[in-house]
């Protein structure tokens, strides 16, 4: 109970999929220049995406609550994990770290005084509170 079941490899192998295959096919097609996706490849990608969801949730949770259980997995845990994991680098723009408005304004001010208006600051603008 205390340790989160974070390890996706311990799962029983099986041929059941939970995510809708048709949706995964649409997602795959959105990035492919060739149209043909075999059923086998579709199955594997669906499985793989499911594994990724388990992995991401499990890792973020394990990271945030090493010892205690019964806590809430929050967005911040995910963005922290993404920020420090090399293989999650592709998610940096998708799950950016939140910053406060005044921090953002400070960043803008520094950028301006440094004379460089970098586009990167846009990705950090998804802040609330």
């Amino acid at each position, binding site marked *: 109970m205390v340790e989160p079941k974070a390890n996706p490899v311990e799962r029983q192998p099986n041929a059941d999929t939970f995510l809708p295959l048709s949706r995964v096919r649409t997602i795959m097609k959105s990035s492919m220049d060739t149209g043909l996706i075999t059923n086998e490849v579709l199955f594997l990608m669906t499985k793989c995406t499911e594994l990724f969801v388990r992995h*991401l949730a499990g890792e973020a949770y394990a990271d945030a609550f090493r010892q205690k259980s019964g806590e809430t997995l929050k967005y911040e845990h995910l963005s922290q994990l993404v920020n420090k994991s090399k293989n999650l680098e592709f998610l940096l723009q998708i799950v950016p770290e939140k910053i406060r408005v005044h921090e953002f304004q400070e960043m803008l001010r520094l950028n301006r005084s440094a004379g460089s208006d970098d586009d990167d600051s846009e990705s950090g603008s998804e802040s609330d509170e």
Partner: protein
Amino acid sequence: MVERIEDLNLPNSVIARLIKESLPESASVSKEARAAIARAASVFAIFVTSSSTALAHKQNHKTITAKDILQTLGELDFESFVPSLTQDLEIYRKMVKDKKESKASKKDTSTTAENANASTTAATEDATE
């Protein structure tokens, strides 16, 4: 092709279930975290698909294969996924083969062999264990 960006979303209920299964029972997940994981999963599928497509093209193949995906996962630092996916794939292949054989013996003309539904999948699994 994709007409609306929502077509790339994965169903929330399935994502919620997958997350729940990978966390301790007492854990909860914030809405924002769940939405971020769902988004990340879509992007992951696109990322792996385009990387696998690039790999296939490099070998002068037009269509990606299961092997391309597994190799890509290794290159993208997700080699921890490969063993369990390989097992899933074996079971899937066996299931498709069994289906074909039983279809041939029954001279059944139905064309939906590959997209097996969950109950037959489970039955096949029991039989193969």
